[in-house]
Structure formats: C-alpha cells, structure tokens
C-alpha cells in the first residue's frame, strides 16, 4: 500500500459517501455542503493523476464559484429548512430508478473495460510531459495554439450565460406574470 | 420515352439565385417596420419575379454541389424546359399573393411576408432539385408557410382544415419518403454506394424487374396525387381553399398543385416508366373521373371559393390526362396547361378577393348585379372566366386542346368523357359569373355603396395577367418550343 493508494482510497470513499449524502439529505444546505465535500475529494483525485491544473481549477470553479452560487440561491429562496411537505417518489419508482442506475453503471463500466485494453497513443507520456515543462505548460500551450478558437468561443458562451441569467432573474418592473 | 440525362452540360450555373434571393428577402423582412411591409413585399416580389425571368431567359442549366455525399445527398439543381416555367410562375404567384390587401397586413405582417418569401424559396428549391432527398425536404418545407398562413389568418374552422390538409399531405409524403429510401437502397445494393440523384435512380429502375417497383410507384403516386389533387384524394382541398386566407389559397391553387404535376413529370414518369405503362388504364380513368366529378361538385356549390376550388381540381384533371397519355406531346401540353391554369386561377381568385373586399356576401344563390357598379372588374372577370372555360384565343384552350388531342389516340373513351367536363365547366363558370355580375343591383347598404371600381395599379396587373393569357393563346410556341424535339 503506497501513500498514493491510501490517498486514493480515502478520496474515493469520501466522494462516494458525499454524493450519497447529497442525494439523501433532506435539507438543501446539507446537500450543498456534502457536494463541497465531493468536489474537494475529486480535486484530490485529479491531483493524484497528476492533473494539477484541473485539480486547482476544480477547487476554484466548483467550490469557489458554483457552490457559492448554490448557497446564495438557497438562502435567497429560504430553502434552508428540511423539506417535509413534499410527497416523495413512490417506492416502485425508486426501485426502477435504482435498478436502471445500477444497470447503467454496469454497462458503462463494462464499456470502459473494453476501451482500457487499447494501446496508448504515447504522445504525452509522463516523462515527455516532464520534459515539456509539466502538465500546466503543455495544456496551456495547446489551449492557446491549436484550440484557441474554441477557447475564444467559450468566452462568448459565458457572455451569453451572463446575459441569460440577468434576464431570467431580473425582477419584472410591471407586475410580471401573476 | 422521356429522358432527362445530358442536361448537365448546359451553361447556366447561377441557379442558386432562385433560392438565395427569396431566402434573403424572407430574412430581411424581419428588419422592415410593420407599416412598410406591404411596400417591401411588393417591391421584393417584383424584383424577384424580374430576376427569375431574367435568369430563365439566360438559358437552361444545372449544377451540383457536394453536401452529404457519403449518403448520396448532393445539392443538385437543374433548370430545364419543364422546371423553368414553374420557377417563373413561382415568382409571379408570389407577387400576386403579397400584393393582395387583407388582415394579414394588419395582424403580424412580418410573419406573412416572411412566410411568402420562404414559400417561394421552398418551391423553387423543389422545382429545381434533381436529388430526391433535397426535393423531399423542400417539398415538406412548403407546408410550413402554408400552415402558418392558414393557422394565423384563416377563417372559422381553420384548425380542422389545417389538420386535414396536413394529415393527408403528410400521409402521402411519408409514403413517398419510404419509396425514396427503397430506391436508394436498390441503388446501393447494385452499385455499393449511395445516391439519390434522379439520373442514377432512373438507371436503377431500368435495370430492375418492374414488379419490384410497384409499391414504390404507388408511394410516389399517392404523394403527388394528393398534392395535385386527383379525385379520390381531394378531400382536403375544399376546406383548405375555403378557410385559408386568400394569398394561401392562391399559393395552393396556383403553384402548390403544380408541385404535384411537376413531381409526376420529373420523378414518376422517368423512374416508373414501366409501371406507368402497366397501370396506364387506371391512371387515365382517374384523371377523367377527376375532371367530371369535380365539375359536378362545382355545379352544385354555392360558395364562390368552393366553386373555384373544385374547378381547379377539374382543370388539373386535364393536366393529368395529358401527363398520363405518356407521350412527349402530352407532357408538353400538360406543362402549357399548367401555366394556363395558374394564370387563370390566380386571376380568378384575385378578382374574387377584390369583390369580397367590396361586398361581403357573394353566395351563389341569387343575382347580385355587381357588374354595372364595377365595370372594369367585371370585364377582367369575364375574360378570366373565358380563359377558365378554355375558349379559343386563351392559352387554356391551346393547352386543353393539345392535351385532349394527345390523349385521344391513347384512350378515346376517357378523352370523350373529359370533353364533357368542358360543357360542365361552362355551366358552372358562367353561373358563377352571372350570379355575381348580372341581375339588378340590390338596394345598397352603408359601406357597400361607397365601394369603387378597381384602381389603376390593379388594372395594370390584370392587363398584364390577362394579356399574358391571350398572348400565349396565340403564341404558345413560347412554351411549347422546349418540347418540340
């Protein structure tokens, strides 16, 4: 058992337990904090695979931005108390959903196993990345050369999202709908 | 035997004008303020029509652009001596349709203008395309503006009529789509690659046992027979024509029906030549029944629009008779008669619109005595009626005469039966004219009494259209030239 293996076991356990908490906690706030837990553990998993940039961005984007948004919204909508007045899904529905999900995961894992047998491309082996100056450098270079166009497009996407969000959450001046 | 090969060598390669211009006009119309929509539409339509005429006069041509070649879908377009007339008619009908005033210019005019130009775009794409798949897409796209028009500006029972129209047309085109896939599959199984080009499929159909194509033939037949319409498949026509706003009716009668005619000429005859010969008896009988049955229905109808819609069916029966005579002369005559029918029916519907603008009630059960009050209108109306009953001197006569001459050697009985349709046509068209125009004018009420005769612009349009009808009546060679070889 190496250290990284222990770390992997810990992170993955936290991730799975966290996500279970997300879906089974009654209060949205609790779910949200469980989600933060999951995000952190994912970040750890990225780091374990050497994807340091992603790991950092995971913390920054998800925990720093998205989660904050969630919490704000929860506060805004006063959803911090446990939800009791909702009729939950029926047991039958839950059963079907569960079975289907298990089936899905099985199928997907099976598919992934088939893919794992394929020969690696050997373009960016670990030592090659080291030679080129590390993961961050390689990704940045690719991003600003070959994929510059897509990168710029994402800025448009973000702009659109900003406009859309403002339009959606803006209070109508004259009454609005009902 | 008709063949459509060897046209790819022709010179004219600017065919995309026919589609780009209306599409551009369609998109631009969203930028024009509401008040200017009509002026914009008229100017645009005149421009488009003039451009179509110019492009057609530049000669025939064809072009093929690659698109999804691995599935056999190319953007193949061809302007030949059949399609060029339909393309010109599209421009003309579009102009007339946007010219008419009505509630479509009061309630959301942008959608109306955009739909009109979109219709022109789709129609031209259908008339020009040599690829079954692009043809199918264009053919279906024509529905969209029609459904918009009927749905937004139609009268009382518009929902039902739209539904009926859509259902029947869709039924037909689905059958056609399946048949198309079958043909493409046959091509693929023979050559190992996909193609939906008409030339390739004609080759396939020649090399295959005729029985295997029977069902595909009926798929195509059904689609176009509903569109034209031929008689057992005409159920949607009455409701659609009566409840649609006038521009949509003009589109349907003037040019949509020709889409079916065109489909028969360009797709059914070349691909399913053997099947057409095999079922020849049935085909001419259906055409003859269309002529007679629709004429009888027109005799008993009291609503002018209903009458005109049935008369359309009856006249298109003649067109189909020409096509089903399966001779090159018959096809040429059918094209001539299609042009003639478009001109006459568009003028008639236009005049009917002018009349209903001036007088609400036009029921054909008593004399309205409108002729003395609107003399110009009724002179034009009379000439249009004469064209519709195909009196010699109008292009309709030449078309009908040639159609019947070429179908007589093929099927004497059906030809004679169809000729009876000529008498019935006289009866209902003259009844129609007389009830509206003749008799003593009724005591005038309020708004009706101030209505004036048609204005100068209307008169010039009518002179243009009617002049065309008469000019072509003496010089049909303009159209027939392409078929004489």
């Amino acid at each position, binding site marked *: 058992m190496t250290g990284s293996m222990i770390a992997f076991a810990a992170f993955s356990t936290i991730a799975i337990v966290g996500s279970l908490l997300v879906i089974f906690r009654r209060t949205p706030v609790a779910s949200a904090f469980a989600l933060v837990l999951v995000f952190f553990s994912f970040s750890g998993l990225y780091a374990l695979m050497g994807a340091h940039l992603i790991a950092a961005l995971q913390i920054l984007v998800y925990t720093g931005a998205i989660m904050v948004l969630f919490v704000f919204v929860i506060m805004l909508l006063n959803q911090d108390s446990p939800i009791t007045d909702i009729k939950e899904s029926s047991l039958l529905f839950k059963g079907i959903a569960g079975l289907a*999900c298990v089936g899905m995961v099985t199928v997907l894992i099976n598919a992934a196993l088939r893919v794992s047998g394929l020969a690696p491309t050997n373009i960016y082996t670990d030592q090659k990345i080291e030679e080129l100056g590390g993961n961050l450098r390689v990704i940045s270079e690719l991003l600003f050369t070959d994929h510059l166009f897509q990168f710029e497009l*994402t800025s448009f996407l973000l702009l659109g999202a900003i406009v859309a969000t403002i339009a959606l959450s803006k209070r109508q001046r004259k009454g609005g709908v009902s | 035997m008709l063949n459509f090969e060897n046209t790819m060598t022709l010179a004219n390669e600017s065919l995309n004008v026919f589609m780009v211009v209306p599409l551009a006009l369609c998109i631009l119309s969203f930028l024009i303020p509401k008040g200017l929509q009509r002026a914009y539409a008229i100017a645009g339509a005149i421009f488009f029509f003039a451009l179509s005429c110019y492009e057609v006069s530049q000669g025939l041509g064809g072009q093929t652009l690659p698109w999804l070649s691995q599935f056999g879908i190319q953007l193949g377009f061809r302007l030949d001596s059949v399609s060029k007339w339909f393309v010109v008619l599209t421009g003309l009908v579009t102009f007339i349709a946007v010219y008419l005033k009505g509630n479509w210019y009061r309630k959301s005019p942008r959608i109306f203008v955009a739909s009109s130009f979109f219709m022109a775009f789709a129609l031209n794409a259908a008339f020009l395309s040599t690829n079954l798949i692009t043809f199918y897409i264009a053919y279906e796209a024509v529905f969209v503006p029609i459904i918009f028009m009927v749905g937004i500006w139609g009268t009382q029972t518009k929902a039902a009529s739209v539904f009926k129209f859509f259902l029947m047309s869709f039924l037909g085109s689905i059958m056609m789509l399946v048949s198309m896939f079958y043909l493409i599959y046959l091509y693929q199984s023979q050559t190992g690659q996909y193609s939906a080009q008409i030339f390739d499929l004609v080759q396939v159909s020649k090399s295959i046992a005729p029985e295997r194509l029977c069902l595909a033939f009926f798929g195509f037949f059904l689609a176009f027979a509903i569109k034209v319409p031929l008689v057992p498949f005409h159920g949607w026509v009455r409701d659609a024509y009566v409840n649609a706003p006038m521009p949509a009716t003009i589109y349907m009668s003037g040019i949509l029906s020709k889409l079916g005619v065109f489909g028969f000429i360009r797709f059914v005859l070349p691909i399913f030549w053997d099947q057409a010969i095999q079922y020849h008896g049935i085909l001419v009988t259906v055409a003859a029944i269309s002529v007679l049955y629709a004429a009888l229905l027109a005799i008993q109808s009291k609503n002018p629009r209903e009458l005109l819609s049935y008369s359309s069916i009856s006249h298109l029966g003649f067109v189909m008779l020409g096509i089903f005579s399966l001779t090159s002369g018959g096809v040429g005559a059918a094209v001539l008669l299609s042009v003639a029918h478009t001109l006459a029916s568009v003028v008639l519907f236009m005049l009917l619109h002018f009349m209903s603008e001036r007088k609400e009630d036009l029921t054909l059960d008593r004399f309205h005595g409108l002729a003395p009050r609107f003399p110009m209108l009724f002179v034009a109306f009379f000439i249009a009626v004469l064209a519709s009953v195909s009196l010699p001197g109008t292009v309709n006569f030449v078309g009908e005469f040639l159609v019947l001459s070429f179908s007589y050697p093929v099927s004497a009985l059906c030809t004679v039966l169809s000729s009876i349709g000529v008498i019935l046509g006289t009866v209902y068209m003259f009844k129609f004219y007389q009830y509206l125009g003749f008799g003593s004018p009724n005591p005038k009420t309020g708004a009706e009494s101030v209505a004036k005769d048609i204005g100068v612009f209307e008169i010039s349009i009518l002179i243009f259209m009617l002049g065309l009808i008469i000019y072509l009546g003496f010089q049909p060679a303009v159209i027939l030239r392409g078929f004489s070889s």
Partner: protein
Amino acid sequence: MNGEIQPMMMVVVALIVFGIGLFGLLIRKNLLIMLMCIELMLNSVNLCFVAFSKMHQSVLGDLTVLFVMTVAAAESAVGLGLVIAMFRTLKSVDTDQIQILRD
C-alpha cells in the same frame, strides 16, 4: 496490484458517482437538489476524461475538462437563474407543482 493507481479505478469511482447522481436526479423533486445531482454527474464525467487521458497518455482529455467546466459554470448559472424565476412565479421549486407541461 503494484501500488500504482490504475486509471481504470478512477473510472470506476467516477461511474459510481455518476450512477448516484443519476439516481438522485430521478428520485428527488427539489429543483436545487436536482441541479446538484447534475453537477455530480458532470464532475464524474470530468474525472473520466482525465482518467482516460491518463490511460491513453494524451492531454486532450484534460483540455476537454477545461471546456466542460466552463460549460458547467454557465449551465449552473443559467439553471439557478431559471430556478429563481420559477420560484418567483410558482412559489415553489418542487417539480410536482410544475405540471403545466401537460396540455
């Protein structure tokens, strides 16, 4: 097991989280929680990308994750905006209350 972390293990963890997220999406009726489940699923897919990228010794997967993150951020922003708008009109974020889809 030679002590090295196999990318395949990462994939399995990611897929389990994906399944949990999916299950949550199906059974929960609170829109906020449903959005969180979607985030879970997105994250697990990201993890898969990185793992496959590692497995095939490429960095394109990492690159994709960057884009997915951007999209996810945009998506959750818009999604939350929708939730707010919906709450404003319907006074609820419960999908049971939202049955105007029918007819």
